[in-house]
């Protein structure tokens, strides 16, 4: 028991998230929308955990709860054994430096008025790390890590001068510049072409190697999760229906929904070579 507790970085227990629709004067129906229903989940340190589900399954909500963009209606979420639901002030800010997020749409996730340097440097400035010169070298270094090299070429550019893939690399750079312990990647490649997506997957794997980061990879694409992740959780209508290693999920699915998902994956069997 102790072993398990030590190795898990994120622990969710009975987490429920409900949205209460806005009340109107004449609406009788007070039904709540349940985005997540009693979710238990633990993510181990250093692993890439894939959360696979269709739109509306609550997978994005789960990611947003983990970075505290939203608060759960009930249940507890802890990072390394300490509860994050109730964090406030300095301890919340400290938590922010440990957990980062990569968003889906690279065209929306960068502020068009900030240069690449300002965008990536933002977390450093906010967390008050280093002086201007140190921050500059950190940003340049991070640019090289995410494959935007030479870094000087990109340093003073603005998002509108970059392609979708490059923007997403900038977004990844912003997420790793604080060297967080945990990153939530919410469908980071769903807006990008396959050839770009595969490069970003390689980048994520590399980052995991270098920094020993834990990554929650949220996706609707089972094949991508299979490629990237150590373990996969399948989420359906707010419930996690199956969690297992990627190999087992694909090779030996148990839950009927998982089976269905695997069956409808567009297959592609023209044996090459």
């Amino acid at each position: 028991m102790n072993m398990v507790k030590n190795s898990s970085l994120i622990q969710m227990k009975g987490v429920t998230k409900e949205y209460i629709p806005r009340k109107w004067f004449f609406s009788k129906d007070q039904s709540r929308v349940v985005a997540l229903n009693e979710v238990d989940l633990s993510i181990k340190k250093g692993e890439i955990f894939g959360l696979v589900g269709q739109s509306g399954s609550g997978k994005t909500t789960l990611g947003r709860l983990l970075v505290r963009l939203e608060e759960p209606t009930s249940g507890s979420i802890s990072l390394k054994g300490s509860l994050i639901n109730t964090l406030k002030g300095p301890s919340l800010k400290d938590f922010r430096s440990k957990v980062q997020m990569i968003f889906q749409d690279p065209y929306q996730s960068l502020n068009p008025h900030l240069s690449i340097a300002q965008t990536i440097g933002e977390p450093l400035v906010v967390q008050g790390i280093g002086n201007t010169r140190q921050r500059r070298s950190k940003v340049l270094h991070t640019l090289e890590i995410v494959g935007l090299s030479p870094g000087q070429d990109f340093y003073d550019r603005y998002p509108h001068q970059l392609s979708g893939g490059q923007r997403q690399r900038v977004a990844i750079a912003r997420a790793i510049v604080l060297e967080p312990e945990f990153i939530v990647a919410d469908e980071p490649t769903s807006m990008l072409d396959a050839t770009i997506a595969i490069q970003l997957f390689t980048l994520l794997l590399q980052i995991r190697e270098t920094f020993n980061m834990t990554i929650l990879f949220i996706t609707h694409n089972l094949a991508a999760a299979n490629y990237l992740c150590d373990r996969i959780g399948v989420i359906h209508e707010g419930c996690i229906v199956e969690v297992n290693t990627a190999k087992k999920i694909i090779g030996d699915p148990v839950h009927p929904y998982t089976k269905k998902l695997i069956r409808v994956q567009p297959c592609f069997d023209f044996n090459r070579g």
Partner: protein
Amino acid sequence: MALISIKNLSIGYQTKGGLLKAVDNISFEIEQGRPLGLVGESGCGKTTIGMTLMGLLPDNARILSGSIDFQNHDLTQLGEDQWRKIRGKDIAMIFQAAMNALNPVMRVDEQVIEAIVTHKPGISPGDLDKRVKELFDLVEIPRIRMKDYPHEYSGGMKQRVIIAMALACNPQLIIADEPTTALDVIVQDQILQEIRSLQMIMDTGLIFISHDIAVVASVCRDICVMYGGQIVEMGTREEVFGTPCHPYTKTLLGSYLSLNNEWKVIIPTMRKAPDLTLKSGCCRFAVNCKICSNAGTSGIPSWINISKTHRALCCSEGIIRKKK
């Protein structure tokens, strides 16, 4: 006799940065009952071709050269009035964004009726009613849902209505532009089955445009791979996906993830976007092509016939033949 044949078509967009050739010298033919797939990444010109075939090019685009023969007409020469007669009747389109293609304040069946009446103003109410019911049966929407409004439909059902509207006038050619991209995998699977079976029943011409090679492979027998406005490889799906020749096709296939191909994945190197301002006839993939950077070729590609149906547009014929 081909249903529609496109010859040396080039289309340019007038922008501040000069003329962008979104489509450069493409030729292909579509036979009745043989779906053709256009595969390529965003910005490769596949949607521009779809729009051209519907006569819906934006104002700043213009056809630079080439012809499109359809029923003994050259579609590139048509005026807006003539287009209006063809559009929806002989050539119909299944749009990508099903949510936006339906009018939210009209009942679903009214929208289908409108699609019919536009081209058959004299149709009797009895026939019209029969036809609408037929169409709803065809796309497997229960008749009790006919009078609903679009917001009461799920994404998949909306896409079915869009398909019904496209089929309303028995078109000879259907252009499906990323019809399943916005849908979930499960719904996508249903819609693809729908399209496949309808295509068998109706026996129309079909151009299926998508960025997803597996989706295209599941519907189409002939495949054209596009890059930077050029068709770089064409052939039957077994040829193109089984024995790809063009380096770009290989990259595209190599970066496609499916549940059982992990070991085959090839990570492409950082690539530059194709330069659309290049002169016509230059290879647009050359900037990213390993063969070109190693061998230092001319940059002017030519068509290399690999089999009767399979050809590739490349600068280095020798390497392509040897690799094969």
